[in-house]
C-alpha cells in the first residue's frame, strides 16, 4: 500500500527521529489539528530548517494540518516542532473555540454563523 509514496533515503523513521531530535512526545498538548499558528518573529540564521519554514509559512495564520502538508511531515511531528517554537515565544496559537470533550454541540447562533458562511460559498 505504499506505491504512491515518494520513497527516498531521507524518508523513514530515521528522518523523523532527526527532525524531532529524538523526541516522540510534544512538550505540550496545546495543538489541535486545526489550531491556527501565527509567527511572532522571523526565522533567524542557524535555526533548524523546519522551524524556519514554519515561521515563514505562519506569517499569516495557518492550521497545524496545513503545516503538516507543506512540510510533508506527520501531524505529530509538526506538533513537536510547534512546541519548541511556542516555548521560545516565536509563535502564538489560536485554538479552536469548539473542542468539546463531550457530545455537546455549539450553540444555535454559532451554528447559524457557520451556515451563513456556507451559503455564501
Amino acid at each position: 500500500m505504499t506505491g504512491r509514496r515518494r520513497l527516498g533515503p531521507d524518508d523513514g523513521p530515521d528522518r523523523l527521529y532527526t527532525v524531532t531530535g529524538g523526541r516522540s512526545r510534544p512538550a505540550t498538548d496545546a495543538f489541535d489539528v486545526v489550531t491556527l499558528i501565527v509567527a511572532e518573529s522571523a526565522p533567524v540564521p542557524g535555526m533548524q530548517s523546519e522551524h524556519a519554514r514554519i515561521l515563514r509559512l505562519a506569517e499569516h495564520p495557518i492550521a497545524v494540518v496545513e503545516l503538516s502538508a507543506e512540510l510533508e511531515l506527520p501531524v505529530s511531528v509538526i506538533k513537536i516542532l510547534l512546541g519548541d517554537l511556542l516555548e521560545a515565544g516565536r509563535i502564538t496559537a489560536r485554538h479552536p473555540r469548539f473542542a468539546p470533550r463531550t457530545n455537546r454541540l455549539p450553540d444555535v447562533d454559532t451554528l447559524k454563523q457557520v451556515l451563513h458562511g456556507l451559503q455564501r460559498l
Partner: protein
Amino acid sequence: MDSNGSDAPGAFGTAGAPGAAGVPGTAVLEAARPARTPLRSTTDNAWKIVVVGGFGVGKTTLVGAVSEIRPLTTEEVMTKAGVGVDDPSAVADKRSTTVAFDFGRITLSAESVLYLFGAPGQERFWFLWDRLFSGALGAVVLVDPRRLEDSFYAIDRLEHHGMPFVVARNNFEPPRHTLEQVREALDLSPEVPLLDCDARAKESGKQVLITLVRHLTELAAAQYGSADADGENLS
C-alpha cells in the same frame, strides 16, 4: 484519475519497512487553484467537518469541489498496537503505521474558517478519530450506492462516538433505488438526513454541508431549548 473517485489511496505504510514512513506528496487534482492561499490575518477560529466513506467513493472529490484550496494530503503516525490508545511514541517507532488523509478549506468569515477532512471509513482508520477529529462539528458519510455495505462500519462508529452526521449518496450512475430503500438498507434512524449528491459539483457539495449544519442547528436547538431552530429561514 477517475474524476469521481479520486480518493487519495489510504496509505498504510509500515514504518519498519524501508522508507515507508515517508510522507505522501500533496494531491494535485486541479492546477487552477493555488496550493497556498494564506488565511486572512483576522482568522482566529477554525472548525472541522469530516467526510468519511469507503475507498474510491469520492471523498477527495467532494472536499475538492467545495474547497478554496486544492485538497492536500498529509498523514499521522500511530502505533499498530495502539488502537484506541494515544501513544505519541509512535513517531520513529518500528511498530508504527501511517494513516493518510486529505483536507480542504472554506473561509466562512473574516474570523472563521472550516477545514474539511476526507478520511477512510475502514476499521483501521478509526484510531485517528480521537487524535485528529475530536471536536469536529459533525460528519458526512459519503456512500456509493453500489457498495452501501462499505459505510456500515463508519455509521456504527459515528453513532458510537455520538458524532452527528448526514449521509450523502454519491450517484455515479442513475440511482436504481429510492432514498427510502437506502435508508432501510443502512438502517438509518429517521432523524438522520439522507440526500443525493454529485461529489464533483460545488453546488451539490455545498448543499451536503448546509444539510449537515442545518441538522446540527436543529439538534442544538433541541438540546438547548432554543425556540429559533428553523434553519429553513436561512436559505
